[in-house]
């Protein structure tokens, strides 16, 4: 690791000003992505501004039918929250399947979505559930927040403060993990809104990160059953291909995971 200066921010405003004064700073969430990258000397921020001690950015609260989750809330907290389990069981089970216990106790939702790893789990939930990302500057709907592989709409000094999830009539996530890293090789989040409309979002497979499967959404709005999606697969030309799985194999996994998610929902 290259030398860096650590700062602990007490408020969102303080975090923003610490960042403004830093030469080449980075916000620090749970450090589960950023710190390994730094240890491998692939990132060398001059300053780290820790946002996980900011009270306003922590915790889970009810918000009408839905929930609001502070960006510094850990995966463990999301997976064990009674509120989340009751309102959005798909989100709770997704959080419980991220990495291993150590990662879940440190990693945060804000850190995960800011990083927007194409194999990360949360992006699928945010998009399928129609969540809104609240930042230090604005509010963005999830589909506008995620802009591509490791790319988001965030500006350099913009902090994710919270994520607002509307309620859902049903939600479920099915993930086929990469055997080594256990990130998603294909993860499909299916959400049925209270008005009966369905959204299906896919992570782990797309070349540009999370994407929606509108053919599946249409099929499921008419017939919310695994059979409805059994014959629908994404175009393999748009999918990732690597030593763990070709694009054709991932296309198959998307179909299989979609069926399993609908089954669970």
């Amino acid at each position: 690791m290259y030398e860096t200066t650590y700062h602990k921010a007490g408020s969102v405003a303080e975090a923003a000003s610490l960042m403004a004064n830093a030469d080449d700073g980075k916000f620090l969430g749970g450090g589960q992505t950023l710190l390994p990258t730094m240890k491998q000397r692939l990132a060398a921020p001059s300053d780290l501004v820790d946002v996980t001690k900011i009270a306003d950015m922590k915790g889970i609260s009810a918000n009408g039918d839905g929930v609001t989750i502070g960006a510094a809330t850990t995966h463990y907290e999301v997976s064990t929250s009674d509120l989340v389990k009751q309102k959005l069981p798909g989100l709770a089970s997704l959080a419980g399947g991220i990495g291993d216990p150590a990662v879940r106790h440190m990693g945060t939702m804000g850190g995960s979505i800011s990083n927007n790893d194409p194999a990360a789990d949360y992006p699928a939930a945010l998009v399928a559930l129609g969540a809104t990302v609240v930042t230090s500057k604005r509010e963005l709907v999830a589909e506008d927040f995620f802009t591509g592989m490791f790319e988001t709409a965030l500006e350099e000094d913009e902090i994710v403060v919270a994520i607002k999830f509307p309620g859902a009539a049903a939600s479920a996530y099915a993930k086929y993990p990469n055997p080594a890293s256990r990130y998603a090789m294909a993860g499909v989040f299916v959400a049925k809104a209270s008005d009966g409309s369905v959204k299906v979002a896919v992570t782990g497979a797309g070349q540009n990160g999370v994407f929606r499967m509108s053919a599946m959404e249409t099929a499921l709005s008419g017939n919310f059953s695994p059979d409805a999606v059994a014959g629908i697969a994404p175009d393999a030309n748009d999918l990732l291909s690597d030593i763990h799985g070709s694009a054709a194999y991932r296309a198959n996994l998307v179909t299989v995971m979609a069926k399993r998610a609908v089954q669970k929902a």
Partner: protein
Amino acid sequence: MAVEGIGARALRKEDKRFITGKGRYTDDMTMPGMGHAAFVRSPHAHAKVKGIDASAALEMPGVDAVLTGDQLVGDGIGNLICGWMIHSKDGSPMKMGGWRALEPEIVRHVGQAVAVVVADTQAQARDAADAVIVDYEELPAVIDPLAALESGAPQIHPEAEGNLIYDWEIGDEAATNAAFEKAAHVTRMEIHNNRLVPNAMEPRAALAGYDAAEEHYTLYTTSQNPHVARLVLSAFYNVAPENKLRVIAPDVGGGFGSKIYIYPEEMVCLWASKRVGRPVKWVSDRTEAFLTDAHGRDHRSEAELALDADNKILGLRVKTIANLGAYMSLFSSSVPTYLYATLLSGQYDIPAIHANVKTVYTNTTPVDAYRGAGRPEATYLLERIMETAAREVGLSPAEFRRKNFIRTFPHQTPVIMCYDAGDYDATLDAALKAADYDGFAARKAEAASRGKLRGIGLSCYIEACGIAPSAAVGSLGAGVGLWESAEVRVNPVGSIEVLTGSHSHGQGHETTFAQLISERFGLDTSAVSIVHGDTDKVQFGMGTYGSRSGAVGMSAIVKALDKVEAKAKKIAAHLMEASEGDIQIEGGELKVAGTDKKLTFTEVALAAYTAHNLPEGMEPGLKEGAFYDPTNFTFPAGTYVCEVEVDPDTGKTEVVNFVAADDFGNIINPMIVEGQVHGGITQGIGQALLENASYDENGQLLTASYMDYCMPRADDVPSYSLSTHVTACPGNPLGMKGCGEAGAIGSPPAVINAITDAIGDNSLSMPASPEKVWALYHAGVKQAAE
């Protein structure tokens, strides 16, 4: 602690310090004024080193020196060597290319070191290493071993034309060809053995110090064999004479073979400690471990099995190409030859075998022995083709094997080995029973009702341990003898230190070796300490690999104990005025048979040291040493049965049952043996399903971290069902065979045979990734439909 002799499930004495974080590993050691090393490594698989500019690095804070290969060569440091001479079938010696610890001219694999920085802290050393500018001119690289043998392939070493290291053979080619001519059935397969990265939990490390006044070096290092390390460093690399070099291998966190060898980094630390004038420490990080620890396996083979009309085996013909990587590591040449092809007869009476092995250089990390070393490759090949042949001729795989078992001993195979003892029916029967082999059809049908494909596979392995009779391996090209040494020191108050040339890096020697003494003298195991891993304390020894510490290392202890016992009895007889033949040792006491006269072991030990009243002419003291050279290899064998369920939608395999029935000869501590088998099977399942060192065509290792290199985890494996059947080994005093590698040797074919049974396609290769299994299964379904 208690008196815990042979057969006791004694808890491991060493575990208290390991579990409480009190182990003392190389990185825990410090020396006053020590600096830290960081290596500058090649990002290219093959390139000319045109220049190294260290000027910026030398200006950086804390930096003492940047040393390069020119300085190393200038100081007369020798090349790294391969210590086992193999001759090609035309009689010519193997073609060994030069390997320098820091390469001044041509780098041959990604990660090869070209320079070292020594600085006050590890962070400073690494920062400065990043600032060393190396001017490379890239050369075309060759990664695939078959491509490396093609004409026009990039030439890696001038010494090895066409990248061929040797073209070796074993067995009777004419007799084998004749067997195939009269065969009623021939099974042919292409069988690959995937390349693995050892991944010991503790990465390699070294701490070297030079005492200028004494002209003496001390090296702490992660070694499985510190004396061999000292010998090689001294005799071949010219670092220092042996009496001026102390090598200490303290607690070592796993080796699996990868810590047998002498690597560039450890040697550079020694050399640099004198050049820079301060002790130098280096601890490998995980990426360096992936790039530079010797890899394992990597064989491409064609195998043919000839059967007569009655399904008896007539012959086996094998052609193997083994990838040794960019340089010949210490024992690399022996692995695909004498540790591999000599086991191709398996448990079967095969009248004729011929194997041809070509080894090649490629621009990849060097390959050497890894848990099993050659024997997993032999077992995988033979047990895959046995299972496939049985399926082809329509026989039960179990019955086909039984039909061909060896049943009389000693049995001379056509490939050197002479098996001394075994009972292959016994382990097959035990495994089939434990696996409920006969009830498989019902389980398959039940799995099908859940949409799963269930399969069952066998593996009847044999392997050779206790390496090895020195004269025999000497005649086959080994540069060293493979005996072991021991010294038993009884202290004046009756506690005992055993100095062993074996080295424990997870095996539990401190416990099992103490059990031998506990058994012999009836002493509490807490009265016994096992001393190992320090060339200043322990007499020359050969170290631990090839499951040899029991059969060879403990045999040396037994020989020393025999001498101690004889002397103790003489002293006791003298003190109690009895005849030596009447002295019996029992419960920590030396008794005169048929009387109530007795002395405690402590009293006898004290008498030996006070020397006030010893038999006429006897030297004081109670301390004896012994060297033990085995008379033959030992031959552990057994049957493994694996049952899997494959998800046809994703191709994912779940190992739902795994049964092992092993014959390890006599067993000292069943708990430790079971631990070895658990670890070995898990490594084997890892190889079969998950692990694979994968390079791109430019020689970049794609699987250089745990994000991409998949180690087996607890939830990847089931609970194992283990049993042992004992045929004592006639070749050593304890009747032991060895258990350290069997699990890794026997399990991969059982897993793959089970999956191929489930999906109905015998061509599956390791690792059986979900995608591969999925694609093969669906191709088969499609073909059947057409």
